[in-house]
């Protein structure tokens, strides 16, 4: 009996200790969701935060990028959103429509805001307010084989569309049959949209209520995009069919592609040593007067869940991670380009000519339409482009269909806007 009683006492004491151990009265646990490699690397920045904020623990959960969007929405529906989470900039309007985000405005002072690349900060602005703290940025520009371009007679990458076409034709001729000049994966909606930005096409009209893809500016960009395929400058092959992008780039199967900063480290790691001096980056052609052409603003931001019970601690974490010195640290860990220009100057990032092209390009970026239906519209654009490239529809028919598809996608938005206007109207 006594032995049993002693055992019970020990157990009770242990239970009490355990209970005390996992929840001291003033300890807060912040849940942070981050994606892919970032989710792993961000953990190295956290011990310092926890030291500076006793009583706050950060628990990181890593999500794969491919499942992150679904998982966030499911978590929202299920009421299990994390306190802080990483979001792709294109998801912001959707999460705002859900009411899932706490507004950022009060936590970003004017000086810091001015230090963020303006095009990138714009991506966080929906309905006139800022919603997520830009963390790292990405945009797309030209990665090219400088040696092949030089062999075709171009010492410098071209700056406008005509020059671009001529240079690609030269490279293509020098490369010989079975090879191409530019890789434009048919699974990507970004290339036609980038070209459309450069022609000033707005993509949507009204209060982003209707498709505007038959407008002259978009049509012009679309025809230019199609001409790469028509003239045999780009292969009409789906991305999955590339055995290995880096291998094909090294072989000269194509000599240029439009891609983002993640390929800086990939190219350095995967291209053979002999080619490491041969590849270069350049801002998008297509600007006027020596300026770069526009590209797409992208990247990831940090957001705070609107209903998080730990608002103050959550914003402390966001501000900590978004501070220039941490962004620089994170760049050194991950290669992700900082959103704060102060981090670039402090780290002299633009001293590397390949990174410098991004520095320059980031001054010339635009965001795709910031509506919750953005990703669906992007898919519709992709569909239209693919149909036209493959010759299943004439460019005119593809664009007309795109307009009607996008009009249908935006039907609910128009209804909501109409209702809002009726409520706030005269």
């Amino acid at each position: 009996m006594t032995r049993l009683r002693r055992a019970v006492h020990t157990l009770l004491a242990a239970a009490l200790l355990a209970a005390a151990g996992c929840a001291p009265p003033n300890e807060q646990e912040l849940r942070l969701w981050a994606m892919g490699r970032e989710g792993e690397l961000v953990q190295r920045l956290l011990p310092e935060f926890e030291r500076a904020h006793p009583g706050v623990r950060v628990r990181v959960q890593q999500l794969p990028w491919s499942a992150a969007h679904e998982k966030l929405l499911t978590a929202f529906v299920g009421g299990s959103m994390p306190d802080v989470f990483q979001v792709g900039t294109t998801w912001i309007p959707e999460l705002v429509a859900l009411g899932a985000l706490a507004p950022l405005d009060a936590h970003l002072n004017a000086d810091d805001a001015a230090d963020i690349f303006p095009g990138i900060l714009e991506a966080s602005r929906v309905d006139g307010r800022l919603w997520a703290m830009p963390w790292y940025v990405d945009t797309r520009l030209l990665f090219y084989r400088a040696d092949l371009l030089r062999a075709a007679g171009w010492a410098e990458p071209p700056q406008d569309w005509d020059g671009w076409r001529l240079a690609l034709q030269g490279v293509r001729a020098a490369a010989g049959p079975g090879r191409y000049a530019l890789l434009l994966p048919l699974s990507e909606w970004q290339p036609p949209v980038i070209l459309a930005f450069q022609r000033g096409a707005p993509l949507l009209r009204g209060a982003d209520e209707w498709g505007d893809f038959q407008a002259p500016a978009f049509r012009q960009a679309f025809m230019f995009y199609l001409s790469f395929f028509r003239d045999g400058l780009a292969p009409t092959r789906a991305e999955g069919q590339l055995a290995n992008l880096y291998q094909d780039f090294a072989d000269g199967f194509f000599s240029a592609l439009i891609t983002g900063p993640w390929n800086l480290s990939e190219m350095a790691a995967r291209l053979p040593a002999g080619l490491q001096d041969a590849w270069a980056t350049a801002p998008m052609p297509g600007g006027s007067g020596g300026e770069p052409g526009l590209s797409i603003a992208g990247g990831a931001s940090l957001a705070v869940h609107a209903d998080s019970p730990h608002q103050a601690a959550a914003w402390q974490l966001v501000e900590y991670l978004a501070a220039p010195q941490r962004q620089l640290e994170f760049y050194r860990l991950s290669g992700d380009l900082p959103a704060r220009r102060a981090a670039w100057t402090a780290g002299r990032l633009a001293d590397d000519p390949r990174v410098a092209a991004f520095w320059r390009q980031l001054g010339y970026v635009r965001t795709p339409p910031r509506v919750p239906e953005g990703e669906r519209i992007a898919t519709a654009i992709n569909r239209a482009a693919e149909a036209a490239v493959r010759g299943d529809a004439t460019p005119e028919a593809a664009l007309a269909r795109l307009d009607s598809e996008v009009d249908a996608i935006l039907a609910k938005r128009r209804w909501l806007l109409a209702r809002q206007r009726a409520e706030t109207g005269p």
Partner: protein
Amino acid sequence: MSGGVESRQARAGAALAAPALLLIGGFFVLPVAAAFLLSLTDFDIYAIADRDRLRVVGLDNYAALLRDRLFWTALANTTVFVALATPLSLALSLATALAVTAAAVRAASLFRTLFFLPVVTSLVAVAVVWRYLYHPRFGLLNYLIGLVGLSPQDWLGDARLALPALVVLAVWKNFGFNMVVFMAALQAIPATLYEAASVDGAGARTQFARITLPMLRPTLLFVAAMTLIGNFQLFAEPYVMTRGGPNDATLSIVLYMYEQGFRWWNLGYASAIAFVLFFLVLVASLLGAGLTRGKGAVQ
């Protein structure tokens, strides 16, 4: 008196059936009913946050489906897939079952395992390998057709070839299961029938037509129905191999439903697609069942 016993028995029966009925009710009937109600609304990403933004639209989702170009594409693709893959799978699995049953015992178990292996292999792993087999420049398939002088094809990137390419993959992936079912049925045919037929002087072909096929008929119809239903639900193959491309040539109904429902959160619309698919499968199954009964009556 007997009435009392009967009602007691009925009560006991109901009590015994209740757990199963509750489970079926809670996990099948209720969700299906909820999904049907959902298909009468425009439940979407806006409505998740604020139920005030939900509209009851009646049959509008179904009407929109009829006007939806992509839905018709998906329906046509799925029909072609079913029409190609079902007979192919049946023929191949029956042929291999016959061959394996006839072969020497030790080799039989080896082949049985080999043919069944694809069924238990993860499709994602299989897809990686098959993407290489189909690769336009380095693929084994193009190498083989090159040996007989044909020009290389972009199997998964060509809108005319992608769906047949998936048919081949799906048949290869799934025929092993049907083969095992056929093998079991073949072993259940009494050997005496064949012995009697041999005594009567029937050759192998006659034996197959007069004994094997008639004895297999119930199994054949069962396997056909299951394969048909499974093929209507084509999803994983295009999802991992082509994402519905190129140019929607491999977009299936379930893949389209998934995209609408879980990529875009148009749950109302996706539910409508689900019910149309349910109806299609139901019709196909009823036709199959009618066929079974018809044949049974003839016999």
